[in-house]
């Protein structure tokens, strides 16, 4: 065979190979029924999640996020990729709600738990009673502490009074105004 032809055929084979493998190996940001944050997988359908939680008898952590929120990016990197946080989260049913979503169910959840900026976590019982809230960004240690509190409350059957009281006692949370998102992105 002509050497150049052979090389060219090999070239196209490599090209198709790279194209195919890379396209399939790319990490999925969101797909059917799930979205991915850091190294964790979250359900996107609250109704389904509640069923899972009831069956497993575990609390539900609802994560309200957006694509442009820089603290969400920090959560992805510092929390959802951290083995300690991930193993703690294994005891919860995880639901992620994109605040920019137009879906009616998502809008209802936002309204029900009065969430109007990202990121926020609300931990609830399968029945929807608030166990604790993590408004804004909490460093991993504090985040873990919140989750443990929620877990204990769930075991002992308590709930937070109205869901906002824990925020005051909790660690500093710094929701960033919208311009903050542009700031970070621009850097």
């Amino acid at each position, binding site marked *: 065979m002509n050497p150049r032809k052979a090389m060219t055929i090999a070239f196209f084979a490599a090209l198709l190979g790279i194209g195919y493998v890379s396209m399939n190996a790319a*990490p999925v940001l969101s797909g059917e029924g799930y979205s991915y944050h850091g190294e964790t997988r979250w359900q996107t359908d609250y109704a389904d999640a509640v069923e899972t939680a009831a069956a497993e008898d575990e609390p539900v952590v609802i994560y309200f996020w957006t694509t442009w929120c820089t603290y969400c990016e920090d959560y992805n990197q510092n929390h959802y990729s951290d083995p300690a946080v991930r193993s703690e989260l294994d005891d919860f049913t995880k639901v992620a709600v994109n605040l920019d979503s137009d879906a009616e169910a998502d809008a209802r959840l936002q309204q029900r738990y009065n969430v109007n900026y990202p990121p926020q976590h609300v931990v609830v019982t399968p029945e929807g009673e608030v166990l604790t809230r993590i408004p804004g960004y909490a460093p991993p240690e504090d985040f873990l502490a919140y989750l443990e509190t929620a877990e204990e409350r769930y075991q002992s059957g308590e709930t937070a009074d109205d869901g906002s009281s824990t925020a005051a006692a909790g660690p500093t949370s710094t929701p960033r105004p919208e311009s903050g998102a542009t700031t970070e992105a621009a850097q």
Partner: protein
Amino acid sequence: MNPGTVLLALAFLAGLASTSLLTRAYLLDDDRYLSYVPKLTAATAVLLVGALSHLTYQFVSLDYSNAYVWENTAAYLSVLYRVTGVYAANEGSVLLWAAIVAVVALTAGVTRGFPTRRGKLVHALTVGVVTYFTAMLLLQSPFASVRTAFPNAPPGFTPTSGQGLNPLLVDPYMAIHPPVMFVSYALLTMPFAIGAVHFIALFRGDDGLFSAWVGSVTRWLRLGWLFLTAAVALGGLWSYTVLGWGGIWAWDPVETAILIPWLFLTATLHAVTNYRPGGRYRVLAPAMTASVFALAVYTTSVVRSGVFRSIHSFADGGIGASFLVLMGVTTLLGVVLPFTYWLLTEEDEVDASDSEPSGEGRLAGWVTRSNLLHLAVLLFGLLTFVSLWGLSFPVLRSAMTGLEVSVESRYYNLWSYPLVLAALLLLGFYMDFDREGLRRSLVGVAVFGLATLVGAAVAPSETWRLASVRPDDALVYQVIGNASALSVLPPVAYAILGTVKRTWGRIAATSSRDARLKESGITLIHVGAALLVLSLPFMYLFAGQASVMATGVAAGAVDTSQRDVGTSAYDVRVLGYERTEFPTDPEPETYALSSSQVLTRGQSLNTSVQTVHGTVTAIREGPQATVVQLDDSQVWIGVAGNGSVGLETGQEVVARGQVMWEFVPTADAIVLAGPETVGPADDPPDAAVPTRVIATGVSLAVYDDSGLVVSGVAGQREYPEQGGLQVRDVLIDRGPLVDTYVIAGVSDGTASISVKRVPFVTLMRLSIAALLVGMLLVFVFDPRHGVRTNSVVGSGESSAPTARDRPEGVTEVSER
């Protein structure tokens, strides 16, 4: 119609006439009216450059009656950054591009003329591109009146202050990066036209013009490469100083977008070197030549059309669609046309290697310089594909399946890495083979290839591994990600050794000064490329960072003692705190309305909050308020309260407050100010003067074991009127081996100081300089296609070398 639009319209007409006459001359093979073409082309260029100068003048003189000027500049900016505003958004960038292409087309027309029929079509295409850009500019003009932004404003209205320049562009690198990039894109227009016309001619049944124009193509491509390399490098250095895009290179879509034409242009230069008239590469070389520009247009569409999400799509808007059309046309002419030709014509091989000898002869038939060069072209093609695919497949996949996938820098890094190593090994082998012959070079490539594999397997520590691999990664990523960066050393060493050795021999063998300089240029480029590859992985893998907090800096209670920066080897001393607001003492005209401006705008100002300035001509103190007349006009300032306002008649004053139109019978307009918002113009109240930039920073000194490393101010600049956007002011010590990079975030009186240690940045700077100097030498001194030997050449330049020079690739026809 304003002067700018008139210039554009005339340029469009001249360009259109020139294109039509040239096309007519080509189609009918009739030279009538052709004498007008040089004048028309010159007129187009002059008019476009005139329009660009007019826009620049409007920027420098802050002519806010132009909406584009108003949107992209402000009085507090220095002249340099006012000029930068010209290409801060789509309209101005396209104008800059169009003007440069027009000058290129003019230069090509003047130096070469268009004596042949096909030459006319080449010229028609380049002028056609200019005309298209001009049409885009007429549809979305950089000279639109500011009233498009204020539809309700009365005639003659101009705002007092501009919106300001995108803070990210307030950087010296950004002042030169875009023009350099557009020069390179403009230079690529010529090869595109030549390549496209070549295939049109082939389809029309003659043998095309590529063989006659190959020298000209080579020069355009080389000059284009020179500028494109500079543009990529300037972009990288910019992102390095404007912290946060991951250092020099972060594979942001826009960065990737400019790398794609660069990689493909590099491949094309190799392909054109491998071209022999009527023989090898007679389809591929012209086809690649034609498609570089198509790729450049594609990548520009990426930046400008907003099809792809990117963190720095500075500009979005209607020009996007025009770019998509241009993309379609250039793809058709530059890619589809050659490809169709290739499919339609039977490839009859004329290669000597077709007969298949056995044993070593057969191997020698495979290993020829032209085949190795072909392999290089293919490797660059694959590298281009990796970048192009990374940019494109998320869009494709989400369109096909609805799944959103992310492309991380890992994708680009891990796929490109083995390809780059292979390219370096190939470079070493090519050079080695050319000098030492087949047998010795095979041993060489085997040794260095093996060393590369061993290097990949030996990781002295985890830091050396290319990427942190996650267990659920695809196998390919696991394998390459786990490889050690040691693997970069053997290919780099082989490439440099081979190149230098061969150059040594070649320089010794020739007595021509030009040939020697050209050889040195080729060597500089290839050694530079190898060193660049060497610097990149280490720059990322061995960068270290540590942080320390300093509290109470704003209160003046700074602890100025030396303290450790985290676990790093650095110490830092905070020496002070600085906070500056810009502009300081601006002229009242730059932010406040005069009394006559208030009266001109009249009713439309009613109830809006405005800043006004003027000379006090009367003061009336009443029981509840004091009123002050400005400039003996119907505009008064009202200040509540019965005390004195501290103003005197004849004084220049500034006041801010709500404008009430026909609020009192005795005045047309009254500005309701308070004691805090009115004051003399030479010491205006803070509330009345806009703050455009708040620069906060700490002055600090960074030490390592051997003493002071760097000192200065690090901090941030905040732009309150531009969405609170913040830009870092970083402090960089550029050391021979290691850069020390200091970032300080100052808020609420606390400074968070991070010191980064980035190795090998200077090596990278040197390697870029080597690439540029090398290409300049080749461009000027190449005995065959250099500008020195070929400054003004007609279409009949020889493709056969003379005995004087021994240019690359002449001997390999008789390789066996």
